[in-house]
């Protein structure tokens, strides 16, 4: 039985300009009820070799002969490191060439394994994307033209360490992009953030993810501008912004966007800094203010996890500055209909919310408590009643 109720189904609360069409916002208000939390059920220590890293900012989960592997993009050795999540399976590396047609840049923006013989690499300003095989050899490269509906060139990027990932579907790719505009100018925020790109036709077939009004005014958010993209089992896409407590739900081929509103998360409404602020002012704001990070869907338990950093003082009592990890971090649990169903306080000094993923075994969160250099350690978290 649902503890949280949808209190109100509203209303056309407004409309915003989205490319050439008008997008209507429908609003759903969700209320909170405590029901579930997480428990730290296991610590998983994976022995890694000297070629592997203990922490990856870009990674993907795959199955090899039904064994789960973490595939991390190693920017130091420019390789893909295949790290088994279960003990007993061997680590493997695919080292890319430094130069020539097979070369892969350490600064790569997006890499995706459709299969081990079909590895796609995308670099923001490169004119083509590449397809490589399991030996790291170039199989093919395709022209890449990503322009929004206004004809402005957009560059694909993935702030994976902020939980922002592209989505690769059978026929189209949903890519986070940025325009070649000054990020501090308001014009930057008038473009949609996600392009639906057809790689066969080499064209953008749709776009979505307009910045909320708060980003278009006089305030500035630096990296807190980067939204998350979460596909749902219903085929819709959830877009969440760090400074906006709500969740925007997009259905492709529809002009209506559902805005999921959560009154209880009002404290996460982030005002940013002045648009003229320097980096120091922003960093201080980043440390002290509350904001959201990734929203992950867990298909095994049919729940969503939304990570949020709470407000804190800029300085400790001894005058030393806090870091973002000194704050209290919460993992909010939402059911499959996006109703809140509890929260968990994460020990962010121990567990790093920047390296998380879901597998059949639970929610994996990187554990800083390594005893040896040849270890990669995760906490595995399970759903539990209060």
């Amino acid at each position, binding site marked *: 039985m649902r503890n949280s109720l949808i209190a109100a189904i509203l209303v056309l609360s407004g409309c915003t300009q989205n490319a050439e069409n008008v997008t209507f916002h429908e609003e759903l208000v969700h209320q909170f009820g405590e029901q579930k939390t997480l428990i730290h059920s296991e610590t998983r220590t994976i022995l890694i070799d000297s070629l592997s890293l203990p922490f990856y900012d870009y990674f993907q989960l795959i199955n090899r002969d039904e064994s789960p592997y973490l595939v991390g993009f190693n920017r130091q050795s420019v390789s893909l490191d295949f790290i088994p999540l279960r003990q007993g399976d061997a680590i493997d590396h695919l080292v890319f060439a430094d130069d020539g047609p097979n070369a892969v840049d350490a600064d790569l923006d997006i890499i995706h394994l459709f299969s081990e013989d079909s590895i796609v690499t995308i670099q923001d300003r490169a004119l083509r994307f590449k397809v490589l095989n399991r030996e790291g050899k170039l199989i093919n490269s395709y022209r890449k033209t990503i322009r929004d509906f206004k004809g402005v060139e957009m560059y694909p990027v993935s702030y994976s360490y902020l939980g922002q990932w592209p989505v690769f579907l059978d026929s189209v790719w949903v890519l986070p992009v940025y325009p070649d505009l000054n990020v501090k100018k308001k014009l930057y925020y008038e473009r949609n953030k996600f392009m639906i790109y057809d790689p066969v036709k080499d064209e953008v077939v749709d776009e979505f993810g307009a910045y909320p009004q708060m980003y278009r005014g006089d305030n500035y958010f630096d990296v807190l501008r980067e939204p998350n993209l979460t596909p749902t089992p219903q085929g819709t896409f959830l877009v969440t912004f760090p400074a906006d407590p709500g969740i925007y739900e997009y259905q492709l081929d529809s002009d209506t966007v559902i805005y999921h509103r959560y009154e209880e998360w009002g404290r996460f409404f982030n005002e940013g800094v002045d648009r003229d602020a*320097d*980096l*120091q002012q922003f960093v*201080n704001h980043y440390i002290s203010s509350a904001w959201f990070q990734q929203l992950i869907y867990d298909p095994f338990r049919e729940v969503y996890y939304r990570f949020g950093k709470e407000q804190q003082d800029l*300085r400790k009592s001894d005058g*030393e*500055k806090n870091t973002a990890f000194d704050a209290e971090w919460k993992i909010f649990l939402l059911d499959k209909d996006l109703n809140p169903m509890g929260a968990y306080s994460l020990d962010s000094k121990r567990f790093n919310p920047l390296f998380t993923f879901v597998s059949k075994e639970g929610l994996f969160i990187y554990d800083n408590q390594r005893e040896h250099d040849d270890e990669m350690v995760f906490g595995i978290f399970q759903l539990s009643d209060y």
Partner: protein
Amino acid sequence: MTMKWSSVFSSFRIIKVALLLLLVSCTGSKMEPYVYGQEFEAYLEAIDAKLDFEKVILLPLDSCGLCVEQVLEDLQKSNQGFSVIFSGEKNSPDRVEKAKKLFQKENLQIIIDENSKSKSFDLNAFSPIILDVSKKEYSYASLSPQNSPEYILD
């Protein structure tokens, strides 16, 4: 027709002048007022440092890799006098080695912020910056791979 060509020519001249001005402004050292002067002085006190030179480089070794590499290379080549303050928690061994080589240079005063106290002060130095402390109002510039030689080389 004549009018058209002359107007094209004159606009071309205007563009050329504008381009020249742009080039001048790009190559000249352009330092901006540094509003964190007091914090910087408190920081020097905290790390117990006294400056020998009027040009100071704050060099967080764990910041923007390309910028740090370029600044280290330019400092190696330069004969100008600088006070250089190294900070950073997780530094790549390669960069630390390059930084260590600067100890031998007599034109540089090397100060090490061992405990990364810089992180507790508002210094606006998340990548290398150069500070001019010769006047009461300090000025500064962020150092990038492009502009580092301009500020550091003789």
